[in-house]
């Protein structure tokens, strides 16, 4: 049965159409959720897409966390609902304290857009079909993607390091971390853009594997 997946649109979101498109390709029923509304309309999963919410003029994602919808997202997350933050969405979820750590300016001080290889380190609902060790090619495009955390080893020991850059660390992230989850594993964030790797015409389909929580639920029998 296909899942209803809400894509949160903030002022300054840029990749929300891409997310809708990708989610539909993996079999979900995607819909936009508006930042100013305080409820999620009963969706089965939430995606916070990429972009430059509120211009990212303060810190990336720092203002979006105050939007009315974020209260509902936090509650949904606390109840175990699957939430995925992509790029700016990852930054928003970190700012909202739904994910550990923070994202800061790339070590090169430049925006970077290129395909990178990431290695799956742990399992969670968003990459349910992938085993740790699997390597995927997915594009990154960001100026503030350097993941920082005071205890990356502790995070890894807790199973919260989801993805690492496999050989090319494009932004100086600590311990090559490209994606993390919360302790429960239902909230995940990553800098690579799985929604831009779902169509062979547009550079590969590896991203589909990172949208598993949006794919149709397996039939009961």
């Amino acid at each position, binding site marked *: 049965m296909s899942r209803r997946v809400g894509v949160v649109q903030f002022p300054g979101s*840029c990749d929300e159409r891409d997310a809708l*498109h990708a989610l539909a390709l993996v079999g979900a029923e995607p819909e936009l959720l508006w930042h100013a509304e305080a409820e999620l309309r009963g969706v089965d999963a939430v995606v916070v897409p990429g972009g*430059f919410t509120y211009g990212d003029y303060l810190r990336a994602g720092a203002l979006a966390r105050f939007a009315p919808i974020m209260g509902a997202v936090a509650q949904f997350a606390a109840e175990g609902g699957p939430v995925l933050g992509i790029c700016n969405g990852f930054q928003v979820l970190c700012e909202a304290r739904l994910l550990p750590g923070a994202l800061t300016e790339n070590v090169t001080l430049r925006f970077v*857009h290129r395909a990178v290889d990431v290695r799956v380190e742990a399992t969670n609902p968003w990459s349910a079909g992938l085993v740790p060790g699997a390597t995927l090619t997915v594009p990154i495009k960001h100026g503030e993607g350097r993941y920082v955390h005071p205890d990356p080893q502790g995070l890894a020991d807790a199973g919260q390091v989801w993805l690492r850059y496999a050989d090319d660390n494009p932004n100086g992230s600590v311990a090559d971390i490209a994606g993390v989850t919360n302790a429960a594993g239902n909230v995940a964030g990553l800098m690579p853009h799985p929604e831009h790797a779902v169509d062979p015409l547009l550079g590969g389909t590896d991203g589909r594997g990172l949208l598993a929580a949006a794919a149709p639920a397996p039939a009961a029998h």
Partner: protein
Amino acid sequence: MATSDRAADPTVPEPAAEPDALATDLGLTSQEYQRIVATCGRTPSTAELGTYSVMWSEHCSYKTSKIHLRRLPSRGPQVLVGPGENAGVVDVGDGLAVAFKIESHNHPSFVEPIQGAATGVGGIIRDILTMGARPIALLDPLRFGEPGDPVTTRVASGVVRGIGRYGNAIGVPTVGGEVDVDPCYAGNPLVNVLCVGVVARDGIQYAKAERVGDVAVLIGQRTGRDGIGGASVLASATFDDNADDEAGQAKRPNVQVGDPFAGKLLIEACLELYARQLVSGIQDMGAAGIACSTAEMASAAGLGMRVDLDRVPLREPSMESWEILCSESQERMLALVQPDRLDDVLAVCRRWGVDATPIGEVTDGDRLVFTRGGAVVHDAPAASIADEGPTYDRPREPWVHPHAHEHPDADEPAPVDPIADWLALLDHPRAADPTPIAEQYDSAVGSSTIAGPGGDAAVLRLPGADGTPGVTLRGVAVATDGNGRRCSLDPAEGARQVVAEAARNVACTGARPLAATNNLNFGDPTRPPVMDAFATAVDGLGQACEALDTPITGGNVSFYNATGGTDIHPTPVVGVLGPLADVTAAVPAAFQRVGDAIVLLGASTRPGLAGSLWLWHVRGRLAGRLPAIDLAAEVALQRLLGDLADERLLASAHDVADGGLAVALAESALRGHRGAEVTPEPDLAAHQWLFSEAPTRVVASVAPDDLAAVEAAAAAAGVPLTHLGAVTEAQQVRVTGVGALDLAAARQRWQSGTARLLDGP
């Protein structure tokens, strides 16, 4: 405004103090000033002089270029909207239309590279948005000084950062462009930006008033003092009613500041207004802000407009009326709205967090009236401001390049080691891998970029008019081209070849070139040779566009690109767009499969070192007579490329241009991670075969099974086909009788050129 001789009648604008001197300071000639006095029938007010001076500036009125631009072909069944609107719109089938235009932001990008380039991006995006289209792609043709110079490093890295900062944050992908370097651009870089948008055929918007009583709504950012005089010489110390003001206050920054977040909200708000059919006319505010948008919309309809400047939201309440009128604050639009739809318009804008303020209305008659504090400060015929400005036929003297008469094909010594020269060419920014620039741009947002930066042309799969990706297989290919050095040797022939190359780039992908837009970057037009180069380049552009059936639907003229007394090379930059029926049939530039045959399609190679990259970059010489292009042969080649792509007979196709066959073969090999083994055409010196830039040639690779069909199609089309060799496994391009280019060494050089431009030595 408190002068002692204030007119008692508040319905008549108060005359400017010392109007003659003010007019001179504003860059108006005494004849132009007299014309304004005659039109007004009285001494003009400060606000009126401000409006006329900006609207009659070269930038806004095209007064120098107009009589020449009229010679350009601009019509055709494919053209839905031609020159005169904010952007051209062409029919691409399936009920979809594409708006596209190129513009420049050259001078601001030297003064302040990051903001200058950023606002250039914002400006052209709003031109496309004004047509009712959703902006879906940007391309940036850039010209800088030679790499290594600290000023060039600052300008080049800043411009790229500025384009990325604005384009990435506003959510419009940057999918292509091109870069060149030359000492003539060291103090005057060129930053041209082309934007493409998609719109339903029946959803095109116009910058024209429709009916009396419609409300003028200012949408977007507050109006500030930034950018006043960006389009003219408005910011002068004497240009103020109050002589006691601090001198510093009149000297406001002329470079506007862009806010991509505000721009993004403006896009979304306007697209929702269009989708709900809430506006009857809309105009963006670029150069000359409120003055320009009101005058143009009223004049286009033969109507008037009355605007209360007290209602314009200001950043600084102390702004003078002329400042409000001429401000170039970014991210603003003026919409005309039927009164019964006003509440809906305001509600849509509120939802997107965009300011929207009714400031006036469309009126009967032809007057453009502005009031402030209850008094009329401006009352003049809209058409006299927008459409009836002066035009000039400036004097011309033949543009003669001092070395154009030379014969490098005959007298330039052949290289001892052509492979070394081949390597050297690959790190010139013209030929080098653009990845260090392209990586700083988001080329993926929108999920429509089939081929991004680095190919012959960008290929986009068209989204629906609502922006939904993946709804059709229909697409467009877009490319830009310009070559200042070649145009400097021969502006007319150079311009013909620029058009042909841009169209050939589009044709290489399998698309059919459909229409063009041009950005004419030239020096000081008051110098007669520059004016002559301009006029002859326009003729060349027109001839090529006529032959290729790619009418020019709009564009931009940028004069006064000069440093000290030295003008830039005449640099017409052309963007060509063409539709693809099925993007899955798009042809890449890279070699695909080992064993594919490599053929040269189009003219066989003839001597062509004049104006070549080899002669310039390796030998330091700019000289010679360009080999003339045969436009009929060019048309035949481009049609053939489309036909072969439709039949899926080409594995790759790549235009032969800067650096000749040497660079074309190396690029196809490097991009495809494949080698090649080729045999030069007979009766040519090795370096001529490698480096000649004779036009109308494409390197293609073809599966062995398809070769007979390609040969037959070429023969039927009358297009010469020359067998060159085959794609190989070995990591080298081996040329019989010359030697081999090692691809590892070549890749190193190829990848270093653009980085050196951005980072310095």
